[in-house]
């Protein structure tokens, strides 16, 4: 299979990342999962949706979780991980395992990306806490997982410094 078009996608994504939003992040994550499984584009990112246990090394479990992102202005977005796949619901979802309520996209991204340098700007972990613009309901460990997936994604595009 000729995969030269992946180079164009990479350029496109780099441009996209310059103006990252929640919607952009979820779309990118979705795309990276799909493409990495299909073509190993940017490695094996899709493996973030899988885990194995110590009983049976061969058996793959899938990461299942329903995230609801809810902005202060009422905008809602859902991300559902199930069966090794990801789906984005731009109108939100009714049932969730973890709900992240946030002031706006900037506040959420600051929270998710805290501690890293993104596009030359150090995103201050302490400031994210001081600003108190993100509330988490439900199982906070899922947010930790999502935080890793976000940073892993940026890492694969050489944006994690």
């Amino acid at each position, binding site marked *: 299979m000729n995969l030269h078009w992946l180079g164009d996608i990479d350029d496109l994504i780099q441009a996209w990342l310059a103006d990252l939003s929640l919607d952009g992040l979820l779309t990118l994550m979705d795309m990276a999962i799909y493409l990495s499984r299909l073509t190993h584009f940017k490695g094996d990112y899709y493996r973030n949706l899988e885990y194995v246990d*110590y*009983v049976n090394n061969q058996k793959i479990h899938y990461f299942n979780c329903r995230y609801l992102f809810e902005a202060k202005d009422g905008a809602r977005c859902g991300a559902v991980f199930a069966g090794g796949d990801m789906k984005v619901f731009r109108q939100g979802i009714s049932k969730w395992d973890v709900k992240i309520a946030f002031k706006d996209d900037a506040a959420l991204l600051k929270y998710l990306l*805290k501690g890293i340098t993104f596009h030359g700007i150090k995103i201050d972990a302490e400031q994210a806490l001081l600003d108190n613009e993100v509330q988490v*309901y439900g199982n906070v460990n899922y947010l930790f997982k999502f*935080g890793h997936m*976000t*940073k892993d994604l940026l890492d694969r595009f050489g944006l*994690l410094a």
Partner: protein
Amino acid sequence: MPEISKEVRNLGTYEPGEDSFVPQMREAYVKARPEICIERPQYVTAYHQQHDLFKDGRITILEKAKCWRYLLENKKPIVRHQLIRTQNMEPLTIQDRSPFAGSTTRKFKGVILYPELVGLIMWPELLTVSRRKQNPFFITRSDIDELNSRIFPYWMDKNVVELTRSRYYNRNEELDDLQLEFQFAFYLDSKPLCISHTIPDFSRAIEEGLEAMAAKAREEVEKAKSGSDQWLFYSALVEVFEGIMCYADKLAEEADFLEDSEPEKKEKDRLREIAETYKRVPRNKAQTFREALTTIWLCWTALNLENADVGLSLGRLDQVLYPLYRQDVIAKRLTPQQAVDLVCHLWLKIGDHVPTMNEAGERLFGGTGANQAITVGGVDKDGADAVNDLTYVILRATEFMKLRDPNLNARYHPGVNQPEYLQRICEVNVNTGATPAIHNDIPVIKALTAEHEKDGFSLEESKQYAREYGIVGCVEPVSAGRTYGHNAAILLNLTSVLELTLYSGRHRRTGLGLKAPRIGPKTPNPAQMSDFNNFRAAFEDQLRHLMDRARMLNDNYGKIHQRYYPTPIMSAFFKGPWKAGKDVVQGGALINSSGVSLIGLADTADSLSALEKHVFTGSPLMDVQTLFKALEENFDEHEALHGTLINPTKTPKFGNEDPAGDDNLKWLLEKVNDALAGHINYRGGRYRVGCWTMTIHTGIGRLTGALPNGRKKGEPFASGIAPVSLLQPRLELLRTLHSAADIPPRHISSGIALNLKFTPGSGTPEKKAKTLAWLVEGCFDRDDGKREGAMEVQFNIRTREEYEYAKKHPEKCPDLLVRVSGYTAFFTDLNAQMQDEIIDRNEYVLSEEEMPYYEPVQLRD
């Protein structure tokens, strides 16, 4: 009282030489960056999965004990570490020559992950933790993958926070007790972090050996009904003893193996000695000082595998180890100098791990070690002088090593301990600049005796238990090996109570608008209050409400620990569980207290004094609306008001020997104790109150707005029980000491940290130590019963320039030791705010004069 030998009195000049390998090992230790180790989470996760331990909705103590045995049996036996990671994360080969084999992790300086507790906070930072600016941890790519794809996923719905949430807070209500904790500004309940904030008892392990203890446990198993709670308990003890003995055997085998291939004779001899020692102990009773140290070290390793490294402490080692030390010295098998070398090596082993901390935690609360406290000196169970030669040996080892872990605490009993001992403690403080903390036996024993009596013990038992106190974590006194008292269970921010009172149940962090949630009860608007008593009454209402919420959450966390996280290893080394046949987590210890430590105490007391004087009584300088406006505007354009509020001659302050200021602090302590009175924790114990703040007074200070005492938004609170710094004019030292000495110990039985900072001035260390000793005597003095005497005092003795230089050039001062509020830390590991707070603390000159001349120095503009 054991007579102190001339030889140990002169130990202050002894320097462990190159042939002891102490200097080389210390150098490697200071150079080494912490490395995340996944050995523990790997084995623990595998065992829980293989045995499906969560299937029944609870885990028995026997199942858990089998898990620890599995871990100990499979843990890699490391006799000689090979590599460290340097400050720039490059690998560096080291020559490990420690007489103690084994390690808490596989690394020379490791970070232990407890995924069942707070390990998962590292998940979002796995890819960046080795690159973060403050206190980075090294981690390999393969370990990141293992954590991400195997270990952390298993614990997502099984760690203490999630199990507590799903069981008790699953309605996800806005700002329920759990959500309120995550606001960080109200209270921090620390059970997701640890529960075993305590001191185990090593005496039986040393005197009997683990094989004999296991045999006794087997006898109890035989007596108990099969499958009963007691049967499970004693069976669990057998499992953990077998696990620890197996680990020792494997270390002995490894030492034998290394010896076989070692070409160098001296190292061959060292390895042989390790192998022989580990074949004998901890299986058998220790016969020598070195064997006793080895027993403690191996039991300590096992305890840290089970219990998070957060303040777990070792107790009165000069008492526990003295008989074998003395026996060896008399038999001429050991010199005091060799004992110093051994203790130095043990200190490095004890400090071979650091706690898990994510970046936000580092920024707000960072720089902490594992706070493993060791206690020396004081009196014995009968009230006689307990200071012995080993006390001096331990002091010298601490003085030479200047490490943040272990955290040394010296007890001093005025009138019983000798002045020479106090002088020596003070010398060590002058020479290290920060350690040991000094505890006043008289008020501490008085406070603990009263607590034990309330727990139902006779007066004689209560006194005896109190006299045998040791320090946990930072400064918290407990009866060593008897009190399973989670002293730091709740950290309550008192300034939040003040805010809730000012804003009728609302808080600036969660919003003051009409639609904002009310955190506390709707108490009257202060503008409508007729006098200060009304304000105090509203404050009490808010205090009880917030305390109840923090207490309920603590109990719920505790119940989750009981259901899923029994602690058989801790129970094996504790007085009480053996008789009760019950885990310490279930209330098996003799004393089962919990503790509340107060954050922002002096700031709240001073704010009350400001309100009392300027708003409610006398000639009002301001009304409530003016105050609200000034707070909202962070005192901008309110310079005159601000100047009045920070002036102790115009506004009463705690620490100025001014009853108007001190009384509000005493009133606060009384009311906090009242709010806890009659409440029994989930283990059947009572709550105690203390005041030490670690670095939290800066962290929470960052989240808190301006206060009525003149403190501006984001500034640190006063540390521990110290008065507020940066007043104009500054407080005089003697007045501060008198105020601190006047606090009733019964209200602070969980311990205090009174931080004092000195610039060394001129003169010899001996003269400075003499001055410091005079100061301690004055601080602890009861003034013919007019005062109680301060419970504790701790020092930083360095020039302002040294701290400022270290802040600017951290790479040149990696081991500059400081006292934070309670524990010791390396200055350069602290966050910038904490560094500034230490630099800005009230500072006095430690003069060489016979009588100290205290001149508050001019600090910042």
